[in-house]
């Protein structure tokens, strides 16, 4: 876990792309896209039916490592609003157990708007936590500090003739976009115009390595 400060608070970044807020005891994760594989299977692309299991196993590890007492999912937790209906037995059991152990909050996004929750936790559209707004998609005019997901930012850099691609955070003074957490969620380049339109051009991409956070200014 490496430190990250944002809006006057200290956070810890986990390897998985989760953000832990020690003062609030909260684990923040975005874009789980549970049951993405089965959504595609309906249309003939038979992706491995293990994505929800893989993603929730990781959440379980992160809760244990951070000893979080609450979990905030920043939207698109399910790939579609009926995703929770399709959740197979094993991940369903994991999820039901976890929502019983910690205070679990589902913030809805564009994919899972109107979701029906069968596994516990509270469903909300937005949340406010110690003065920070938590929502799915960054709102350009928002004056308060804000954390969101939605864009699945990833950083691609070239060094020493080779290319590396990693999920990353995108940060400005008042906005922080989390990387996608789900096992089968791809990424969008951190300098994509859609991301810059949401956060402004004074943004940086943040990548956690084993001992610290690397910061890359994003050029349009």
């Amino acid at each position, binding site marked *: 876990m490496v430190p990250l400060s944002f809006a006057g608070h200290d956070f810890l970044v986990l390897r998985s792309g989760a953000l832990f807020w020690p003062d609030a005891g909260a684990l923040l994760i975005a874009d789980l896209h549970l049951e*993405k594989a*089965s959504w*595609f*299977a*309906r249309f*003939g*692309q*038979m*992706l*491995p*039916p*293990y*994505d929800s*299991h*893989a993603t929730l196993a990781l959440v379980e590890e992160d809760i244990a490592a951070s000893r979080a007492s609450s979990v905030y999912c920043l939207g698109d937790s399910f790939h579609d609003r009926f995703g929770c209906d399709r959740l*197979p037995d094993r991940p369903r059991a994991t999820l039901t157990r976890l929502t019983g152990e910690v205070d679990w909050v589902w913030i809805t996004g564009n994919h899972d708007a109107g979701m029906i929750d069968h596994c516990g936790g509270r469903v909300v559209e937005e949340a406010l936590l110690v003065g920070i707004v938590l929502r799915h998609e960054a709102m350009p005019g928002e004056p308060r500090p804000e954390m969101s997901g*939605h*864009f*699945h930012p990833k950083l*691609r*850099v*070239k*060094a*020493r*003739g*080779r*290319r*590396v691609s*990693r999920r990353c955070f995108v940060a400005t003074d008042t906005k922080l976009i989390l990387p996608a957490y789900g*096992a*089968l*969620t*791809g*990424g*969008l*380049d951190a300098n*994509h*115009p*859609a991301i810059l339109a949401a956060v402004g051009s004074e943004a940086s991409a943040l*990548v956690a*390595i*084993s001992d610290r956070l*690397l*910061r*890359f*200014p994003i*050029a349009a």
Partner: protein
Amino acid sequence: MVDAARKGEDVLLVAATGAGKTLAGFLPSIIDLIDSPLEGLHTLYISPLKALAVDVQRNLLTPIEEMDLPIRVETRSGDTPSNRKQRQRSRPPQMLLTTPESLSLLLSYPEAQTMFAGLKTIIVDEIHAFAKEKRGDLLSLALSRLQRLAPEVRRIGLSATISDPDAYRGWLSTDGDIDSVALVRGEPGATPELSILTPQDRVPWAGHSGRYAARQVMDLIEAHDASIIFCNTRSLCELIFQDLWSVNDRQLPIGVHHGSLSIEARRKVEAAMAEGRLRALVATASLDMGLDWGNVDLVAQMGSPKGSSRFLQRVGRANHRLDEASKGMIVPGNRFEYLEARACLDAIADDELDPEIFRPGALDVLAQHVMGVACAGPFDEAELLAEIRTAAPYASLDKETWRKVLELNATGGYALKAYDKYRRLVETGPGKWRISTPKVAARHRLNAGVIVDNVMMDLRFRNGRHIGRVEESFGSTLSIGDAFFFSGMSLEVEGFKDSDILVRASRKEGRIVSYGGQRMSMSTHLARRVRQFLADPTQWRRFPDDVREWLDVQSRRSLLPEPHELLVETFPHEGHHYMCIYSFEGWNAHQSLGMLVTKRMDEAGLKPMSWVANDYALAISSIEPVADPRPLFSPDILEEEFREWVEESHLLRRAFREVAVIGGLVERQHPGQRKTGKQVSFSTDLIYDVLKKYEPSHLLLRAAWDDARARMTELGRLVRLVDRAAETMIHVAAERVTPMAVPLMVNIGREQAPGGSADEALLVAAEEDLVAQAMRLD
């Protein structure tokens, strides 16, 4: 040919380029159609190149029209308008010329049954160019299907000169019986005049492109009517073109040709070449096959030829006339490549051609074929298996794998039966299968095909004209104002639009476009000859002075290994320590070995820094000296460490991406449905990671490993290298750099040794570069 036809035999015709074998292949069909005219499909011609089919059509139509024969000849490919395709299915021509992919698609329509029922002859052209690849697997399966629809059909294979015709006879046969396929050999052409170009008798120490010889190559172009200058990669092709252009004092018309140029651009230079308007074409393997250009009188190979058949076939592109000798020249890039070039010419003189390595048929291709068969109509599992086993690459397909292929198509083939309700194939009775809905067929036809491109970005001018494509991995590094060389021009980026890069012609000095792609290694028999050269000083008098001197000083300062020996040199140089391993097993094997050995050196506290590999050797630099190299090469390196490394490597991920698309697990990205800015399609890397963790025995992971092994015969070479290392290693601890090490040392630093996680090290480096740039005051 005609004799074999009368007897109704299958035939393999092997003849040099330019012997007119394609028309010979059609002759029996034309005679038959004159004797007994008929409506409906008589002859199916399959070539790996669309352009070849068009050319053959033109050549056939002339005699047919002159003799006023009632024979319709049509082509069919992805470019054929859909109304004509439809008409071809309901009212086929007597002769249909097509590609393996188009044939496979044709077989996925219910009409295939009636369309092919009367088929008499199948002609497979340029069989040597693709039988061993996935397209060969696809065609072999299509042939097995055609044999069932038309049991009397005859097969004719046409091939350039090959080292093992029997292997191809087996491939072509209906049931694996080599003797059932008659072998007809064409007249041998005139012996080509082959030589090595060494300007002023000098061969450079390092490099691999022959760029230093641009002036001499330009002189040769001036002295000949028309030349083809072959390069080993697309990047080199652009570079060499620039080099030649800069010494093209007489402004001769020269062009460039490679697989990333737009089809229109390629057709344009091909036409210009055919009409004699170009004096030279700088090209890649994209020109290995193709139309006959009678006027080409010189073929030059820049850098290593890699194999004797390969070079010979390239030289065959000159003078498509049997009575005149073709002229071929190799321009070696460095001294090792000189030895390789010499080995190549010796091998040709000894009639030793590159070994033919046939491998078992790919399982992803099989899955695609089975889906296609299902789209044409219901099938019986046991009958279809029997039919598939008549295709040579699948002769030993076992029942268990066969069940897995069916399951892959039906539900994705997972142990967790999660997708039963979304089945693409359903069992209607024991062993009886059909597709679940018509939509399955529509999607299959949209996604079928066995060539999976990297994600590409299109290059366009503002007026919309398409120039070609670059890989997205290169395109994404471009910014507005950047310039790069492409298609022989300098192009400047004006903007981006969806997956297009908008460019304009520029005078700026451009970058060279980089391409991922496979790298070809020197063939094993050339490697063996190079080893023999080193050990046999009596051969050296055939070499230029500086090559001879290089070997002579090497033998005195260090040693030259016997052919079976593995020489390892260690020496200090400029404050660091170096280890050079001369194993001659090809770049890919050396690259893998570099990764594995530096990891071990790291664990042993030797502080490796970087390494560089070429086809001949591997050099590693480190802070601490290697006192004894033997433990670094112990065979146990191949167990855990090797497997782990391959699983994490791009090689396997790339292979997985391909099998996932071909095997129908994920659909192709179609232009227009790409990145909308919010929604991003999934990456096969993520699927690979999940599958590897939760279902490591999945059929497509097996297929990916098969691919990695088949395509990198070097994996096998690596195993042999490490296995023999203990007994055959000779370690020379030199006090300073040795002559043989120089070609490597010039490029050392290409690859950084992993310090902890290699990716993280690169990220840190990227940040450091950024800081250094930001803090520079100039």
